[in-house]
């Protein structure tokens, strides 16, 4: 590869990384706006999360006496792992410079690290809210992660690989045909995404009532730039899941590697459109459905696990024929 | 022609009996219908028709058709006199009797159709029809326990039937590449001639389903849960029919498929599975006999035990084993129905089915008491009754090949013998317990059956022996 190509590839990969980081708060703001409109309110501007982040970055950090270095370090690690995970998911182009590391299982591991640290930070403070949030989060995670892995397995069986760029390219081919396993995996992914991002019906992102908090309970003690990083990480996680579902199940519009600016532009536009659709669908779903009681969430996640298992089994049927 | 008549007579009379209001007429018509069917069955034995696409008569089913129509005839005769008493005591009302007689004939139709069917699908439908009619008759008393028994019978029977249908579909699947699509692949006479070319794996799996499905209806442990309740809570003629006819029909269906498997050299021998189930039923039922306090339940478990012995015999296979199994099927049918006739008399006299409340029968009702003794002696396998012949054949042929299994069989037989003897002495001999009114129903069916069993124990008619031997070879 010539130096120019190298610079171009680096630029494309860097563009994706920054695009993802900058677009995450916009998606969260958009979802909030659509939800508000659906509830017949005017709602805040979609740029409001940016303003919140800027405000928080400028504020003073207040640390609890009982916290340790973990409490201070956790937001940075959470943000960076989530950012890396989000940056590895192909958004507008496949086969970018670092796409060889964009492996589904690696992404699951990165997210797992972030969640682990968040739970530890919640425990670190020593209050009961933190412990409550952490324990609930871990209960959900103990089901969500196997379900996610099972779904990854299903998709990987169809595509023949776990590397996301290759998956996206494989699933665009016409040989894939009409697959019920893919449909089941899509539903499973959506369920896991909802659970992991602390959305209704699993957790209410707008609440601060102790009976209903999960995610909010863990980050209750954060302030200032720490809180900014935590919120940004949460927004990145939502964007990452939406991008992931779009990349795996609706891979049309992704620009192949090395093509020109025009196809990159189409890719960006397609991705923006998919994110908008995802945001609208999420807002709609959250408005229509009610929050589940905490002890029913394992059943909800169990459905995702079952769907993954069933999708795999059905794949074995069609493979064995 | 006779084959059709054997089918249409019960069907037609069922329709007629459903419409007639008077129970006396319908009871007599019931007997008449069964007698006509018996006459046609005898004709079938003498003039065997050519096998058609739907019906056929061969060495295996000719005996059972005759047996079925005969037991149906004697049971209807018993029922005619028994039902009157039930009406008097108020256990049944006149409107239910219409239902009862119609269902009786419909059930005979179903069993005849199952025996005569040349099409495995048709056979399945007929067995299901027979099951449904007996379910409705078991629940006819409409008491709590009767309904519970009928519901359990219905659910377990339906599950068994469904599994059997699945097995039938698999057999069709195995036959299709060889015989071609369509009706031909379900005609039994066609299937048996081509069976050696079927896919053996598919046949194996099919047989497992069929064994579980039809085996539920035969009453093999562990699928036997419906049997004691259904026998105990239905009217006595129905208990006689269940034990004597329905169990046999289900086993007959199983035998048809065993013949298919035997014709295919690569298919796994179903022997070990059948031996296992048979032994399990035998020993389990033998143990259960000891704690029974209801006389009908006692003999219901005895039916399970005998079905276990029969399935064991067929599992051992070989000409001797199969012959013994066929003989035992016939003898058990006659003996068990005879016993249930006597139990019916006893229950009517004593007004209860609890063993603890009846006693000293040979003193108060000598004919009935000694009839019961003879029946129990027969079913326990004492000489000179026919059951002894078949059990002896089974034990001796098993001993020659697998002594350990023979020991187990003998153990089970002795166990059940002990239990039956224990109960028998308390009912037939000993202190007189319970009311001692006269017996209203007729003794003829009971003694007719016992006479037949006794004769068979001493002398089996040569044609029957020839048929059984021929079928035993075909069973593999």
């Amino acid at each position: 590869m010539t130096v120019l190509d190298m610079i171009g590839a680096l630029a494309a990969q860097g563009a994706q990384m920054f695009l993802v980081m900058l677009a995450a708060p916009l998606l969260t703001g958009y979802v909030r706006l659509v939800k508000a409109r659906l509830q017949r309110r005017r709602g805040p501007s979609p740029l409001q999360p940016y303003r919140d982040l800027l405000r928080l970055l400028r504020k003073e950090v207040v640390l609890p006496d009982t916290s340790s270095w973990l409490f201070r370090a956790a937001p940075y690690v959470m943000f960076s792992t989530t950012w890396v995970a989000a940056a590895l998911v192909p958004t507008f182009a496949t086969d970018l410079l670092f796409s060889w590391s964009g492996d589904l299982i690696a992404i699951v591991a990165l997210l797992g690290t972030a969640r682990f640290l968040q739970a530890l930070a919640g425990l670190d403070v020593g209050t009961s809210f933190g412990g409550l949030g952490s324990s609930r989060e871990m209960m959900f995670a103990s089901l969500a992660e196997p379900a996610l892995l099972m779904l990854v397995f299903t998709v990987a069986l169809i595509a023949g690989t776990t590397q996301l760029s290759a998956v996206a390219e494989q699933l665009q081919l016409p040989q894939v045909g009409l697959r019920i396993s893919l449909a089941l995996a899509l539903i499973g992914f959506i369920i896991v995404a909802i659970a992991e991002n602390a959305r209704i019906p699993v957790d209410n992102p707008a609440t601060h009532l102790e009976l209903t908090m999960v995610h909010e309970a863990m980050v209750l003690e954060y302030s200032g730039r720490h809180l900014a990083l935590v919120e940004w990480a949460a927004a990145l996680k939502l964007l990452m899941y939406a991008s992931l579902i779009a990349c795996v199940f609706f891979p049309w519009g992704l620009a192949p590697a090395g093509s020109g600016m025009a196809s990159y532009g189409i890719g960006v536009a397609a991705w923006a459109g998919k994110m908008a659709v995802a945001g609208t669908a999420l807002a709609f779903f959250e408005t229509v459905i009610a929050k589940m009681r905490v002890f029913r969430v394992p059943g909800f996640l169990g459905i995702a696990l079952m769907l993954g298992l069933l999708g795999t089994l059905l794949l074995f049927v069609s493979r064995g024929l | 022609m006779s084959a059709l008549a054997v089918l249409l007579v019960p069907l037609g009379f069922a329709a007629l009996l459903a419409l007639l209001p008077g129970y006396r007429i319908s009871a007599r018509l019931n007997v008449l219908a069964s007698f006509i069917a018996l006459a046609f069955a005898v004709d079938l034995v003498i003039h065997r028709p050519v096998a058609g696409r739907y019906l056929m008569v061969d060495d295996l089913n000719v005996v059972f058709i005759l047996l079925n129509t005969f037991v149906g005839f004697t049971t209807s005769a018993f029922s005619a006199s028994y039902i009157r008493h039930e009406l008097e005591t108020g256990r049944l009302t006149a409107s239910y009797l219409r239902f009862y007689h119609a269902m009786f004939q419909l059930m005979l139709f179903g069993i005849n159709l199952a025996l005569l069917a040349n099409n495995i699908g048709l056979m399945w439908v007929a067995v299901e029809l027979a099951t449904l009619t007996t379910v409705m008759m078991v629940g006819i008393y409409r008491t709590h326990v009767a309904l519970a028994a009928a519901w359990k019978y219905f659910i377990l029977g339906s599950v068994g039937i469904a599994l059997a249908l699945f097995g039938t579909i698999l057999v069709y699947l195995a036959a299709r590449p060889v015989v071609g699509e369509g009706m031909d692949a379900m005609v039994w006479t066609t299937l048996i001639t081509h069976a050696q070319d079927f896919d053996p794996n598919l046949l194996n799996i099919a047989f497992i389903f069929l064994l579980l499905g039809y085996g539920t209806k035969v009453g093999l442990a562990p699928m036997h849960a419906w049997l004691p309740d259904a026998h105990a809570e239905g009217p006595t003629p129905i208990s006689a029919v269940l034990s004597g006819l329905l169990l046999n029909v289900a086993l007959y269906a199983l035998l048809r498929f065993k013949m298919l498997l035997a014709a295919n050299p690569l298919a796994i021998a179903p022997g070990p599975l059948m031996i296992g189930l048979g032994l399990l039923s035998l020993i389990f039922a033998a143990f259960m006999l000891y704690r029974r306090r209801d006389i009908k339940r006692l003999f219901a478990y005895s039916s399970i035990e005998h079905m276990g012995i029969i399935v064991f015999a067929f599992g051992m296979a070989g000409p001797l084993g199969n012959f013994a199994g066929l003989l035992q099927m016939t003898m058990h049918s006659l003996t068990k129905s005879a016993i249930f006739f006597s139990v019916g008399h006893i229950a009517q006299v004593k007004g209860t089915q609890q063993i603890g409340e009846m006693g000293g029968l040979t003193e108060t009702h000598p004919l009935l008491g000694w009839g019961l003794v003879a029946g129990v002696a027969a079913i326990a396998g004492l000489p000179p009754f026919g059951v002894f012949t078949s059990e002896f054949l089974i034990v001796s042929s098993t001993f020659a090949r697998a002594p350990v299994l023979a020991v187990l069989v003998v153990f089970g037989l002795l166990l059940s013998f002990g239990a039956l003897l224990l109960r028998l002495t308390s009912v037939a001999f000993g202190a007189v317990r319970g009311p001692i009114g006269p017996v209203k129903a007729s003794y003829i069916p009971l003694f007719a059956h016992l006479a037949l069993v006794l004769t068979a124990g001493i002398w089996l008619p040569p044609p029957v022996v020839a048929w059984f031997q021929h079928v035993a070879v075909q069973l593999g």
Partner: protein
Amino acid sequence: MHGLAFDISHMLAGLLVLVSLAMLYQDRLFALINVLALHALLLAASVAWQAWVHDAPQLYITAAIALAFKAIAIPMALRRMVFRLGIHRQIETVVGTGLTMLAAIVLIALSIKVMLPVTAGVDPVAREDIALALSVVLIGLLMMVTRRNAVSQVAGFMSLDNGIVLAATGAQGMPLVVELSVAFSVLIAFIVIGIFLFRIRERFDTVDLQALDRFRGEKL
């Protein structure tokens, strides 16, 4: 890999298995009856698709029977019955949903493992229909075993029946005799079930079969 015909029949059979699983964790009777109707609807669609792919017009009749009776008439009748029995507000304690679902998945895997190698000589559509039909049958059995309410057991039995009809249509060229008779016997069976359900209500004021157990003639 496979053509559209296979994909669609695979999808319908897979959906049937999915709906069977969904039936396992329903604890309200009206929801259960709705899922039962959906099950029969999927069966009718699957049978109709088979009829179209294999050009077997008699299967359309089976599909129509499944649709008319099992998807429409029987759920309607069951709903009315449940309402009249007054049990539509009950929540049935479903025995260990998680364990039941896992058992169901194990049964599906088992039936696939057993049936696929055995049917090697048959064409792909029939093969996967038989394998998935067996899983539907086994899940129906599982449902009958784990439920105590008589209506739920009947629902389990109906789904078992649907599985068998699926297997029968998957076996190409099976004569109409069997199909009609299967449908016919389901009808009769339902009538009998109906009679029993009402009689049980008359006698016991409940459709809970554990209550029936008290009236079992003899323990064991």
